[in-house]
């Protein structure tokens, strides 16, 4: 499974290690790049206390699998792995893990960056933040 969407808190380091062990590709990859997106306790200069992440079940998984396929066509990578959590978050909770493996480092970096940028622009997730003064939907992601 290259894509996991879960409503449970996850440990990104455990997930990436488990996936890498399952790859059984020791000695083939020289580079692994990971990106971990984590909930901050501030956004646009305002304290954020909680966050709820909504998604479109089915469409999310479909598009995450699509962007992984695209990355594999564009770069010579051995594998890629995405975990994205949904539901209720507190500051410090991991939101997303993107991991890429390749023989040489350039491919792993570039594919990793591609995956998170495409995820942020195409995968149907929506964030709603709880502030001191109420709640607000995040209207758009910050550009790369």
């Amino acid at each position, binding site marked *: 499974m290259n894509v996991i969407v879960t409503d449970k808190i996850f440990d990104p380091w455990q997930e990436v290690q488990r996936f890498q062990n399952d790859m059984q590709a020791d000695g083939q990859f020289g580079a692994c790049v990971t990106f971990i997106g984590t909930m901050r306790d501030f956004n646009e200069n305002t304290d954020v206390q909680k966050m709820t992440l909504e998604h*479109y079940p089915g*469409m999310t998984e479909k598009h995450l699998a699509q962007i992984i396929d695209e990355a594999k066509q564009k770069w010579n990578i051995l594998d890629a792995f995405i975990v994205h959590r949904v539901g209720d978050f507190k500051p410090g909770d991991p*939101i997303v893990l993107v991991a890429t493996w390749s023989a040489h480092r350039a491919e792993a970096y570039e594919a990793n960056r591609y995956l*998170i940028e495409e995820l*942020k622009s*195409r995968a149907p*997730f*929506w964030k709603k933040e709880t502030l001191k003064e109420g709640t607000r939907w995040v209207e758009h*992601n910050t550009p790369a």
Partner: protein
Amino acid sequence: MTIDVKFFASLREKMGSDGQQLDLAGLETVQAVWDAATSNAEMPVNLLSAVNMEYVDLNSVVKDGDEVAFFPPVTGG
């Protein structure tokens, strides 16, 4: 034909509903589905639409059994 309409996130809250089943007659577009589902509500700027979980534009034609979703810009990651 039957169309399964879905609303997400701030649009879902605004509509007070996560969607509905629509019975429509004849050849219809995504725009027509929006109009029928919302009683011709004004469409929010930046609204995104998908048919059967693929992004489409408002002129796309729908067919019986399609799932048509409307939602605001995505903010995952």
